[in-house]
C-alpha cells in the first residue's frame, strides 16, 4: 500500500498542480482577450446599457476578487452561469459530453484496431511493397489537414457514393465519416510508432535467441516482440486518445457534430468565460486521468517501473 502511494502520490500532486495552472491560465487569458458584453447587445446599445450588463455579470469587480470567487466556486463544483446561454455552464458542457465521448471513443477504437496490426505487419514485412504502401498511406494520413480530409470524405463517400450522411448526429451512419476523419491522424501516428518500436525489438538478442530455440514465429511476434514494444505504443495511443477527446474542433465543425471542441471555440468567440473554463477544466481532467491510466498500464506491462514492495 505504501509503495502504491509512493508511486501514485507525487503523480497525483503533479496532476492537481497542473489542473490549478490550467484553470488559472484560462481565467487570465479569457479576461485579457476581451469583453463579452458588446457581443450580447445590439450594436447601437448605449454605454449605460453596457455598464448595466457588465455589473450584472459581475464583470465590473476587480480581477483578483473575480478570481477568488471563481476558485471558491469551482471547489464547490460551480462553474458559474453561461453568459451566452443564460444557464449553468456545467449543464451546457454536460450536454456536449456524450457526443464528444461517442466520437472520440469510436475514432480511438478505429485507430487502434487498424493501426497496431498495420504497424506490426509493416515491421515484420519490412521493405516489402506491403510496408511501403502502408507507411505511404500513414504518411498521407498524418500530413493531410483534417479539414481537407473531412471535406474530401464528404464529397467522395457522401455526395458521390451516397453511402453516408454529410454530417449531423444520429444513427451509426452519421458517425462513420467523422470518426474516420478524426481517427486518421491518430491511426497514422500509432501505426508509425508501432512499426519503429517493433523493429527495435526485433533486433534484440532475446528475439534471436527465441528464434534460435525454434519458438513458433507467431509466439515470437505476439509474446516476445509485441509485449516488449508495448511501452511506446501504449504511450502514443494514450496521448492520441486524449487528443481525440479534446481536440476535435475541426472535425466537429466540418461534420456539424455537437462536440465539446466546437462548444469551446464558439464560447471563446463569444467570450463566454464560464463555459470555456468548465470545458477546459473537464478536458484537463480527462487528459490527466488518461495519463494516470497509462502510468498504471506501464506498471502492468513492465515490472521495472512497478513500485518496489
Amino acid at each position, binding site marked *: 500500500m505504501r509503495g502504491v502511494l509512493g508511486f501514485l502520490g507525487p503523480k497525483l500532486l503533479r496532476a492537481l498542480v497542473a489542473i490549478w495552472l490550467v484553470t488559472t491560465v484560462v481565467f487570465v487569458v479569457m479576461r485579457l*482577450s*476581451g*469583453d463579452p*458584453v*458588446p*457581443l*450580447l*447587445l*445590439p*450594436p*447601437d*446599445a*448605449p454605454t449605460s*446599457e*453596457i455598464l*448595466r*450588463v457588465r455589473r*450584472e455579470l459581475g464583470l465590473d469587480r476587480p480581477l483578483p476578487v473575480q478570481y477568488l470567487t471563481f476558485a471558491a466556486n469551482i471547489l464547490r463544483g460551480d462553474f458559474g452561469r453561461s453568459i*451566452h*446561454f*443564460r*444557464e449553468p455552464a456545467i449543464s*451546457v458542457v454536460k*450536454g*456536449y459530453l456524450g*457526443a464528444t465521448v461517442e466520437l472520440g471513443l469510436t475514432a480511438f477504437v478505429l485507430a487502434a484496431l487498424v493501426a497496431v496490426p498495420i504497424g506490426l505487419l509493416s515491421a515484420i514485412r519490412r521493405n516489402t511493397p506491403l510496408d511501403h504502401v502502408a507507411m505511404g498511406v500513414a504518411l498521407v494520413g498524418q500530413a493531410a489537414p483534417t479539414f481537407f480530409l*473531412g*471535406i474530401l470524405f*464528404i*464529397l467522395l463517400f*457522401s*455526395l*458521390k457514393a*451516397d453511402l453516408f*450522411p*454529410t*454530417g*449531423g*448526429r444520429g444513427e451509426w451512419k452519421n458517425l462513420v465519416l467523422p470518426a474516420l476523419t478524426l481517427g486518421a491522424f491518430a491511426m497514422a501516428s500509432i501505426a508509425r510508432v508501432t512499426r519503429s518500436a517493433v523493429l527495435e525489438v526485433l533486433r534484440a538478442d532475446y528475439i534471436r535467441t527465441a528464434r534460435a530455440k525454434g519458438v513458433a514465429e507467431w509466439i515470437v511476434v505476439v509474446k516476445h516482440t509485441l509485449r516488449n514494444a508495448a511501452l511506446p505504443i501504449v504511450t502514443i495511443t494514450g496521448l492520441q486518445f486524449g487528443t481525440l477527446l479534446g481536440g476535435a474542433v475541426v472535425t466537429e*465543425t*466540418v*461534420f*456539424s457534430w*455537437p*462536440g465539446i471542441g*466546437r*462548444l469551446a471555440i*464558439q464560447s471563446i*468567440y*463569444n*467570450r463566454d468565460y464560464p463555459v470555456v473554463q468548465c470545458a477546459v477544466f473537464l478536458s484537463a481532467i480527462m487528459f490527466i486521468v488518461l495519463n494516470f491510466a497509462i502510468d498504471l498500464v506501464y506498471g502492468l506491462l513492465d515490472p521495472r517501473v512497478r513500485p518496489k514492495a
Partner: protein
Amino acid sequence: MSQVTRRELLKSAAALGTAAALSPALARTAQAQTTQKKELIVAQSGDISKLDPHFSTSSNDIRWSFNLFDNLTSRHPDGKLYPGLATEWKLTAPTTWTFKLRSGVKFHNGDPFTSADAKASIERTYSPDAKTMVATVLTTIDHIETPDAGTLVIHTKKPDPLLPARLAFYGGQIVPEKYLKSVGAEGFNAKPVGTGPVKLGSWTKDDKLVLEANDAYWGGKPDFDRLTMRPIPETAPRIAALLKGEVDAITQLPADQGERVAGNATTRVAGALYAGLYVLAVNSKRPPLDNPLVKQALSLAVDREAVVKELWRNRGIVPSQPIAKGDNHFDASLPPLAYNPNAARDLLKKANYKGEEIFIETTVGYLTNDKQMSEAIQGMWKDVGVNAKVEVIEYSVRAQKNREKSFKGVFWSDPTSTLADPDGMMWRLLGPGGPQDYWRHARWDELGNNARFSVDEKARGEMYKEMTKIFLENFPWIPILQPYEDYGLQKYVEFTPNPNQQFEIRRFNFKFKRA
C-alpha cells in the same frame, strides 16, 4: 454530385438510343420538382443561443423567434407593413397610436392573446427588472393603455411616425404575460410559448432545433407538420447537405457558390436584395480622414462594379446613396456612386494629402468577402496614391472596437435597415451618440432629428434628400455595395425570402410543391 451521374446517364442513354433507360432518369428529375414531405429542414451557419425573443438580436436566433412568436405588425417580403397580431393601427393624436388587436388568437399553451399580453410584452423590453437585450428598441414609448382586451393605445414621448415599423422587428415579438410570470424568465427561455405558426418541440444544442406546426395558427397552418433547423457551420458541408437532399433550404449561401446550387438539377437559388448596405465606415475624427476631400477621393477611387462583378458574381448592386434601395425615401434619380481615379488623384492633391497611412480594419468572414474586398480596395486606393494598409482583426476585437469607437481608419459595417426607413439605418447608426458617431455636422444632425419626430412623410422626404446631399460630400460611410441575401432551396420548395434576414415562414411566402 449525383446530378453528374444523372447527366452522364442521360448522355449515354441518348447515345445508345435506349429510351427505356431514359425515362426513369427523367422521372427522377421530375419527381425532384415536387415532394410529399411533411417536414421542412433548414440549415444555417450556427446554432441558436436563446429562445426568449427579448434576449437576442443575432440573426441566427431571430430567424426562429420570428416563427415561434408574432409581432403586432409584420413586414412581408415586399417590404411593406401588414397586419400581424394587430389588425389595424392609426395615429389618433400626434403622440398616440391606437392598435386594434386580432381576436380569437391563442398562445401555444391555450391562453388567449389579449391587449394585456401586448402591453406587458412591450413594457418588458425596456423594464429595468427584465434586463433584456432589446431595451433600446422601443424607448420612444412613454406609456401604454389597454381600454379593452382588443385595443392597445401607445403614447409616445414625441411624435413617432415609425412606431408600427419598430414593432415589426426585434423587440416587438409578443410573449404571454401570464405564462411568463408563472415560469419566470429562465423557464420561459427553456420552454417558450408564443402565438406563431410553430411551437417548440425540442432543442439539442449544436445538433437540431425541432419546431412543430401550430395547427390552430390564425394565419393558417403552414404547409408542414414539422420545421427542423440544423446548424452546419462550414459552407462546403452545408451546400453538400443541400445538393444531397438532406436539407430543404440553406441560409447564407455565398455568391461564389450560387452557380453550383443553381447548376444542380434539383436545387435553386432564391435571393432578396439585402435591406441595408455594405459600407466602409469611416473614423472621420482621425486625420487625414477628417478632411471631406480625402473621403471623396477614397470613394471615387473604388471600382465598385469590379467588386460586384468579380467578388460577388453580380449578386449585388452599386449603391447611389446612404439609403438602401427598397427603403422609404430612396432617391431613384441619383446615379450609382462614380469610379474616377483621375478625379480622385486631383482631389487628393487639393486636399494636400501627404501619404499618411489609412487603415482598413477587417475581419475574416464577419461580412461575406470582407477580407477579399479589403485587399481589392487597398489595391485601388494604392493606384491613386493612397498609402492604404489592411489590418485583420478577430470578430470579438471588432465588437470591442465598435463599442469603444476606437477604429483607426475605415472598417466594414453592414448597416441593416431595421425600419425600412433611413431613420432605422443611417440615423440610428451615424446619429449623435449612435454606435458609429465619428462625424458631426450641425445641419445634418438638425435634419435627422426633425425627420425622426415628424409625422409628415413629404417633409421627411425633403429632409432625407438634403441629408443625402450632405452625406455625399462628407462620406461618414463609403458605401460599397448592396448585396443579395441568398438562400439555397430544393426546387420543390417555394419560398420568398425577406430582405432583412427575418426569415418568417408563413403561408404567404412558403409552400411545398406537391405532385
